């Protein structure tokens, strides 16, 4: 996930901004980390460079 698109994404539930927490990055993008809603506190994982912004009840808990 590229950081310059941060201002386009939001929490799928309440549509508030997300804070980015980076665990791993390369030159171009964030590979692992999380996106945390500034309003409801829900945390959305970034895995393999893909932000998982599915509503929490649709998220698969088991790793693919």
């Amino acid at each position, binding site marked *: 996930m590229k950081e310059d698109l941060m201002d386009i994404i939001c929490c799928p539930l309440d549509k508030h901004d997300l804070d980015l927490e980076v665990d791993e990055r390369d030159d171009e993008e964030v590979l692992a980390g999380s996106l945390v809603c500034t309003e409801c506190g829900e945390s959305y994982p970034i895995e393999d460079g893909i932000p998982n912004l599915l509503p929490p009840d649709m998220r698969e808990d088991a790793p*693919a």
Partner: protein
Amino acid sequence: MDGQDCCGDVDIDVTDDGGCCDGNADATGSERLGYDADDVASVADGADLGLGCGNPKAFADMTPGETVLDLGSGAGFDCFLAAQEVSPDGDVIGVDMTPEMVSKARENVTENDADNVEFRLGEISHLPVADATVDVVISNCVVNLAPEKQRVFDDAYRVLKPGGRVAISDVVQTAPFPDDVKMDPDSLTNCVAGASTVDALKAMLDSAGFEAIEIEPEDESTEFINDWDADRDLGDYLVSATIEAQRPPRDV
């Protein structure tokens, strides 16, 4: 739980006899959907799964610098075509609820050298996209799979900038479904039983706040739609359509 999960938790089944979720990515198949040979040739192999029912690029009138959102982006074919239209300064965001599809699409970013395309896991009636940030919402044979279509259109309206537009290819219902179609559990995931009528779609778009709503059935699409099912002529009650609407330039 995943009633709209068309292509779901399986790899694309190319052995079945058709339907929007069965890959049919040969050039002839995609050209029947409305892509020209240049479109197909311009995207690296692997992104075109032949799962659509039209070509949103053909009527979305995308211009350089625009931000595009693709609802149900699959392996990314329509996103990569859109990226060519909006480059160099535009961005394309693909949202899909299927982890396998998003992973595949992300691999295709490298193949297509498309650094202005991003994919994220998300659900089209709960879009993870900020208000008034998008110029064009495109989608190809996906909205019919959504159980809550009104929410999809409401959320599309929310993310569009004032004056922004939707350009969606999808199937619409033209006649009542026979009972055997309604009872067939595969019929929803195969992009048949979830289709709405033109009038129902217009009402939902109107309710969301859209104007300049135009839904045009593509009569010639019955040919490929009939091929989706070996046992039935689905074209008797299903047709592919172009769905266009605009968010008013200023909120009233």
